[in-house]
């Protein structure tokens, strides 16, 4: 066999199990204090909450202590992430930096930047956005055209990024910018990663409201924005070499199968202790998918912990996971007992809210962070078909 995707089992170490209980206790407290509610998707952004999480030592968990990290394992980080997601805690202010931007800076950033930025991320103080997509560069990431031109002491940025989540609340962006034209031999050549201070003069942010009525997306316009040399991340023109191993982190985490989990939880609540067989079977099927996905996702976390870069396995988890979480609200909708004028009121506000919210966000799940089509291409390559 040329390929053999392996998802070996992971036994979580005792410290991760203890940590889980600690996180649960913290989240229970926060819910009781009214910081957030578990159903629906409201209040997903809270810097105050992120600071508390930072104070707990749960941001930048795997980073070196000298940069404000905690030198804990990927598996411990995994436990924190999935507990936060399952409880629908408002992590948006720190999650991008914790998952993606921080690790990129840690790996490719310059020393002074690492010393300054990473401890602030770990404290929950900084919100990051990712400047990848452009009007003519979506799935085709390497078609990015927003330019960075060399100038005295730094770079001048001109162009437009779009669909940038959280840009309006972010302190920094990590942007993929064109520093040279692509070459004939390598169309991915010529792009460079930069750390961009979102308060820089010349940046204009325009909101793009999504179909759920939320302001998450933005268009970010750069007009002669100065970025100092110090904020260059990695090698000039060589960003394509830096991108691929990050994706394993991004693609296989619990956020790739838990985004609509509350719809199932609320269906179980609605079902009560003794549902009919049809409803029970429907619940059972979804639980089977969920449990299997979690096992696979955890297995990828274990591979990362072991120092491997399971890029194809991560793509498999994301493809299966996002398709599952996207389909889940629809399955849940059809399993819910029928309600009519003469049926008893089912007291289902939590269910209704969860179902509405998850139905509305479902379309994005197989698009963000690599579309289904892109992922299947990666898997096909792993199978030796490309």
């Amino acid at each position, binding site marked *: *066999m*040329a*390929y053999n*995707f392996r*998802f070996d*089992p*992971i*036994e*979580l170490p005792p410290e991760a199990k203890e940590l*889980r209980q600690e996180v649960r206790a913290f989240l229970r407290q926060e819910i009781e204090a009214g910081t957030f509610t578990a159903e629906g998707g409201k209040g997903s952004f809270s810097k105050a909450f992120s600071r508390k999480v930072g104070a707990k030592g749960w941001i930048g968990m795997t980073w070196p202590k000298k940069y404000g990290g905690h030198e804990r394992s990927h598996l411990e980080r995994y436990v924190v992430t*999935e507990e936060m997601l*399952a409880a629908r805690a408002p992590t948006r202010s720190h999650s991008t930096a914790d998952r993606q931007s921080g690790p990129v800076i840690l790996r490719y950033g310059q020393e002074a930047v690492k010393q300054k930025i990473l401890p602030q991320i770990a404290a929950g103080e900084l919100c990051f956005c990712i400047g990848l997509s452009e009007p003519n560069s979506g799935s085709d990431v390497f078609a990015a055209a927003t330019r960075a031109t060399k100038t005295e002491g730094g770079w001048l940025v001109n162009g437009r990024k779009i669909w940038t989540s959280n840009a309006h609340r972010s302190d920094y962006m990590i942007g993929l910018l064109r520093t040279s034209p692509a070459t004939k031999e390598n169309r991915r050549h010529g792009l460079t990663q930069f750390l961009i201070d979102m308060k820089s003069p010349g940046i204009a942010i325009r909101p793009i409201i999504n179909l759920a009525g939320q302001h998450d997306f933005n268009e970010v316009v750069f007009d002669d924005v100065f970025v100092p040399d110090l904020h260059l991340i990695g090698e000039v023109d060589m960003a394509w070499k830096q991108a691929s191993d990050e994706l394993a982190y991004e693609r296989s985490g619990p956020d790739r199968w838990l985004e609509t*989990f509350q719809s*199932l*939880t*609320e269906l*179980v*609540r609605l*079902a*009560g*202790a*003794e*549902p009919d*067989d049809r*409803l*029970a*079977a*429907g*619940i*059972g*099927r979804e*639980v*089977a*998918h*969920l*449990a*299997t*996905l*979690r*096992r*696979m996702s*955890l*297995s990828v976390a274990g591979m990362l912990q072991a120092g491997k870069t399971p890029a194809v*396995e991560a793509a*498999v988890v994301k*493809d*299966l996971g996002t398709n599952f979480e996207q389909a889940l609200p629809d399955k849940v909708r059809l399993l819910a007992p029928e309600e009519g004028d003469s049926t008893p009121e089912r007291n289902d506000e939590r269910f209704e809210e969860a179902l509405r919210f998850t139905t509305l966000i479902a379309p994005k799940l197989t698009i963000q962070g690599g579309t289904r*089509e892109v*992922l*299947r*291409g990666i*898997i*096909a390559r*792993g*199978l*030796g*078909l*490309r």
Partner: protein
Amino acid sequence: MADSIIVDTATRIFQDLCEPAIVNDAETGEWPQALWQALEENGLPLAWVPDDLGGAGAELLDGFAVLRVAGRFAAPVPIAETLLAGWLLAQARIAAPAGPMTIAPVHRDGNIELGADGTLRGRARHVPFARQARHIAVLCRRDGARAVALVEGAGLAVSGATSLAGEPRDEVQFDGAVPQQIGPVPAGLDEAALCLLGAAARTQQMAGALERILDMSVQHALDREQFGRPIGKFQAVQHNLATLAGDVAAAGAAADAAAEALAGSGIAGEAVLGEVAIAKIRVGEAAGTGAAIAHQVHGAMGFTYELSLHHSTRRLWAWREEFGNETAWAKRLGHLVARHGADQLWPFLTAGS
């Protein structure tokens, strides 16, 4: 983790002695003697029987790993059934005899009685390989309690039927049969528990069969040319194969989770019930969608008897139905989840790890 020597041994035996022609011949009733003999000589069918009862004394996980390989090769022999029978006999401290065996009943509502006169009464349906089994390990009821009876295959009334894969799935009449040996079993071992272990065994065989059809499909997509290039170069075909690969990976992971749960805590308890249910549901679904994609990729060739794809796909269709199909297990799992309530769903999902 299973012992890699056992897995390598099994792989070598199936590679050498379980070629597609052997599988075809078995479907016409020809017993694959060379294959079975090699398996026996290496102690694989009795892997789950302790040394002192005549077996190899291997771990549960080793036996499950052998079944994964057997499934990959569409082995037309009662390797799973003999493993299960040996295990069942060992629960009653009955030594395992040589030769192919099977178990009865294979349904949760199985109801075979052992009378005061020492004879059995009742019938069992869909008993795999009954007509080829030298012995049947029967889980029966004696004064309400369970016992295991070792019954010789010869002399039993067996009406032959076959599974979708052409494997024997017989109805066996036990009325008046006199067991060679009888032994009591530990509390908790009933028809449902036997079914649980059977389901876990089938998920391993199915995961193996799924691995095989992914292999075949990818190879076919690379070899078969249409419109001037290998069909595997077409994006639509690539995406189908990527979907198949995902289902195969999920099936393997789910089947292993069940095997580990059984190896870790035995047949009793909600956690094991949950893991086996999850596996039989998830693997069963993968069997359906996976077989469909494999056939689509193979086109008309895959629909012929000549190509061996059907050895695996017909087994998948048969096995997903046995020891409880997806719906049967989903009901059990759903009721279990509902009993614990919404707030226990996440703790349930994270309990194992």
